[in-house]
């Protein structure tokens, strides 16, 4: 019964789509779309800057910005790269967690934690325009 209802709903929607049909392509986005997406990105950059300058990531009041004004000397353009002390090729987020654990005396963030994404958005934003050089020391 439930399945029949669902399929008739699909037919219904399908016929509406046929009526409203016109060709759409993936390359049809407008300056307004670009602005929207850029604004969305900058919102996350701003959240990243707030985290980067706050005492909330760790437990001892130390903030990332104390050692990295404008996120300098973080070199996001060189990741992933071999970290001698970790013994493997590491992505940027792993080094961010190293900083959170050590100077900040805090707990690791998951790689897909929105805060980790925001931190990376901010760090990368401050380094915009610099060419990618993965692996560089």
């Amino acid at each position: 019964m439930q399945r029949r209802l669902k399929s008739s709903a699909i037919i219904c929607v399908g016929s509406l789509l046929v009526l409203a049909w016109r060709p759409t392509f993936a390359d049809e986005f407008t300056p307004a779309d670009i602005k929207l997406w850029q604004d969305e990105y900058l919102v996350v950059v701003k959240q990243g800057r707030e985290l980067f300058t706050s005492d909330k990531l760790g437990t001892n009041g130390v903030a990332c910005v104390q050692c990295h004004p404008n996120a300098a000397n973080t070199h996001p353009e060189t990741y992933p790269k071999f970290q001698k002390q970790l013994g493997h090729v590491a992505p940027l987020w792993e080094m961010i967690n190293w900083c959170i654990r050590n100077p900040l005396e805090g707990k690791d963030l998951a790689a897909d934690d929105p805060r980790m994404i925001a931190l990376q958005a901010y760090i990368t934003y401050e380094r915009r325009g610099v060419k990618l050089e993965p692996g560089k020391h």
Partner: protein
Amino acid sequence: MSYMNRRDFLKSSSALLAASTLPLSLIEIAYADTSQNFTFAYISDAHIQHIKGKEFVRNWDRGLIRAVAETNLMDPKPDFVMFGGDMGQLGKREEINHGLELLAPLTYQKHFVIGEHDYYLDLGEYWQKIIGPLHYSFDHKGVHFVVLNSILTYDDWTYNRWPSAEERMLQMADLDNPNGSPFMVGEKQRAWLKQDLAKINHATPLVVFSHSPLQKIYRGWNFWTEDAEQVQALLAPFKKVTVLYGHVHQIQYNQIGTISFHSAMATAWPWPYPATYAQAQSFLPKLTVEMNRADPFFERDATGWQYIDVYSGHVREHYQLAENTRRTVAFNPKTGQPEDTRYQAPDRRLLSQNHY
């Protein structure tokens, strides 16, 4: 080598040998009348940071503890120790008290420069009560020393801009904060300096301490003093002038006219060179051979303290680096500027001195 005779060279080589086993030995090479030479130690930017109750950030504590212990073991003893400012992180009494407690084991006379992290909570009130004046001068073995408070700023920013003293301190504490304000010595203090120097013969060696560089390097991080040129103009008539500053947490040196500039390392943490910020232009003196890029895995790397030989009125600054080869930047009488005794020539620089 060229300005040492053989005997001096042998003496310094044996001192170097001793230095490799006893890293704290003072290596003194006499260039002129040795009786004129003396040394002092310079510890700066401890950034003691209060957490709560009796808890302080361990990492920054350890840097200052190490500098104090090493300074106490120096032989021969320095004549005095200068603390270059930023004792605390947010100007709290707990931080200044704890900093003084960690400095207390020093067996030498101490002098102090105030930094912005010590000032912008109570505008130096507690500092003046417990430590002393914010600008002053003294004479030692024929050298005139001046201490300036170079981290003042526009009155409007200091007095009218912020809802609370805590907020003002937080705003000034962030180096890259666009709501900050440029440092300055200010008109009143420059008038005092002019008067102080009026009674000093221009041949007298002059050593000036400030927290911020009395030269303009990068305004965005306040590696900057707004009235640097006016202060330099007051120092210019003197034949041998050295300006020593903290604040920048890195090795910098320069020569402008008769004035040599040297910075101090921090005991707390190192800072990147401004040129590593890709979005802005900065003006690091070309003369400076940069310190090594810090290895974050060694928490004391690229931090340290320094001892300074004053010989013939010029200074040799010895950087005592926790995890790096020690460096010496000395006035080269042939070129008339401070130079690194090991790394100055471009082909002698290390891979790790390449910042990007």
